[in-house]
């Protein structure tokens, strides 16, 4: 088990050891950096391709149909077919568009999506960079995609994309705050911002999701993550039914593929981070560490796709109300419960924290009762 656990790390050490022989030592450092960069640069797009495949299969199965099974054995070559199609499609730039912004937007939207992979701990010792501010780095870099999405919508000089851009910026800003707040309890308990030490604090099955505050913080974080990535039920910025395709209306061909890739890669990054923060990252009994991380990340992705197969799109006011009136107060109160849990000795803290959590839940539900949708009363239909 030990060998298979750190197979990649050993592989990298082998390469470095081999190069040690005839390269000056500073180039070896650069080579090791390059190896992790190439690993991420390969892993990112490949996960993105097979997430599109997974999404179409799962949503298909939910709707009683097969999903792609023509190209390749189980439709496994479908992402490659999509890729080729995207490459060969003509790349139209609107005539009145602001050329610079229109061109830069897809480029800048992919950079944060790839950068955040550097902080995710894929396995034991397999986090590309062990930043001691890793978690905050993740949140800071993911705000950059907001700016890129807005550049895309402003650059294409199109009413629909501008509407989509406005919605995207408003949504991402208002869901970022509950997201940061729901991460604070994890930092409070582990005492450090680095994702690697967060996972080490959860080793041996002591995952944060089993603690009273952790379970609800995970829900809040995951929902905000789904909203941050503009996926259903928060996919107002690219609401196909009302504003054509939102911010990427005027994009076609490879540029659209970049927007598409950024969305899926950040979806994987968010699920990876949820797995790291609340589900114990690569901690698991038998399988090698990086397998556990992938299992948990893909489980989160399955939930996101499951959302897509079920939930209708939220209205803008419901979307904003949900973030400001429900998630934010809940995340704030959760911090107090986590503090309670952290300070009290072992047996008592579960009971007290559980009770506090129950009180918090009741308070939030009572407060949110007024604007949660009432039972519909039909006047004419019986």
């Amino acid at each position: 088990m030990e060998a298979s656990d750190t197979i990649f790390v050993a592989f990298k050490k082998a390469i470095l050891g081999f190069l040690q022989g005839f390269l000056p030592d500073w180039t070896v450092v650069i080579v090791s950096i390059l190896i992790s960069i190439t690993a991420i640069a390969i892993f990112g797009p490949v996960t993105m391709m097979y997430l599109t495949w997974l999404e179409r299969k799962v949503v298909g199965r939910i709707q009683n149909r097969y999903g792609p099974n023509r190209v390749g054995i189980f439709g496994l070559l479908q992402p490659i077919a999509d890729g080729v199609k995207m490459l060969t499609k003509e790349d139209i730039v609107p005539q009145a568009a602001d050329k610079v912004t229109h061109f830069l937007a897809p480029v800048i939207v992919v950079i944060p999506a790839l950068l955040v992979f550097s902080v995710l701990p894929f396995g034991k010792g397999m986090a590309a960079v062990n930043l001691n501010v890793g978690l905050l780095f993740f949140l800071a870099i993911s705000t950059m995609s907001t700016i890129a999405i807005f550049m895309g919508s402003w650059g294409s000089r199109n009413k629909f994309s501008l509407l989509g851009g406005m919605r995207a910026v408003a949504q991402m800003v208002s869901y970022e705050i509950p997201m940061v707040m729901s991460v604070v309890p994890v930092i409070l308990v582990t005492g450090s911002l680095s994702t690697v030490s967060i996972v080490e604090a959860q080793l041996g099955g002591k995952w944060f999701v089993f603690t009273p505050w952790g379970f609800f913080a995970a829900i809040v974080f995951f929902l905000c993550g789904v909203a941050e990535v503009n996926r259903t039920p928060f996919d107002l910025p690219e609401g196909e039914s009302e504003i054509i395709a939102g911010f990427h209306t005027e994009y076609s061909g490879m540029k659209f593929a970049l927007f598409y890739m950024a969305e899926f890669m950040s979806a994987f990054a968010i699920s990876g981070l949820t797995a790291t923060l609340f589900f114990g990252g690569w901690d698991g009994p038998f399988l090698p560490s990086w397998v556990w991380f992938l299992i948990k990340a893909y489980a989160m992705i399955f939930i996101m796709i499951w959302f897509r197969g079920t939930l209708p799109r939220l209205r803008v006011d419901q979307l904003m109300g949900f973030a400001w009136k429900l998630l934010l107060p809940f995340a704030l109160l959760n911090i107090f419960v986590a503090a309670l849990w952290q300070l009290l000795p072992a047996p008592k803290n579960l009971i007290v924290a559980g009770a506090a959590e129950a009180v918090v839940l009741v308070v939030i539900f009572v407060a949110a009762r007024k604007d949660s949708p009432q039972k519909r009363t039909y006047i004419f239909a019986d």
Partner: protein
Amino acid sequence: MFGFGVLKGMSVTLWNFILSYIYPKKGITTVQYPEKKKEVEERFRNFPFLVYDGTPDNMRCVACDICAKECPPKCIYIIPEKDAQGRIQKKPATFDIDYAICMNCGICEEVCPFDAIFMDHEYELSEYDRLSDLMYPKEKLLKPVEHFMKIRPTDCGAIEAQRAAKGIKGRAAQVQSAPAATVKPAETQQNPPANA
């Protein structure tokens, strides 16, 4: 209560997802088209075809031109046969249906007094050239009554039963039993039908 509607909806989709794996017959509705084809319902109607009993030349159609007159898009074109003296025979020389125009409404089937034209179940009729290939001549339209029985057993059975009851025979039987030029209708009543 707040949020339980979402959970109910999610459980429905999850159950659908699992059902599609453990019990595909009930869970999956797609038919893999080229390999397996979906059985069309009996009353499914696509383009019309002409019926003949036994051999193609004793077809039921007597070129009465009612269906051509009734056809809304006017896609049926009939020229009756003429014998040596130029008299019009009760048999079409050319009977063309332009499948490109036909809207498979089935009116020709209803108005035909001689049960000669019925709607087919064949739907794989795509061609390369719309003008010439989709203009079906008589030869391509003629199909045996057995084909009609195979695709629409109940309707065909009812029509055959009616024909048997009224003693209408196929064209071949009429020719043998009435060598004289004029055939009194009364005489043809008693003879049994040529083939049920």
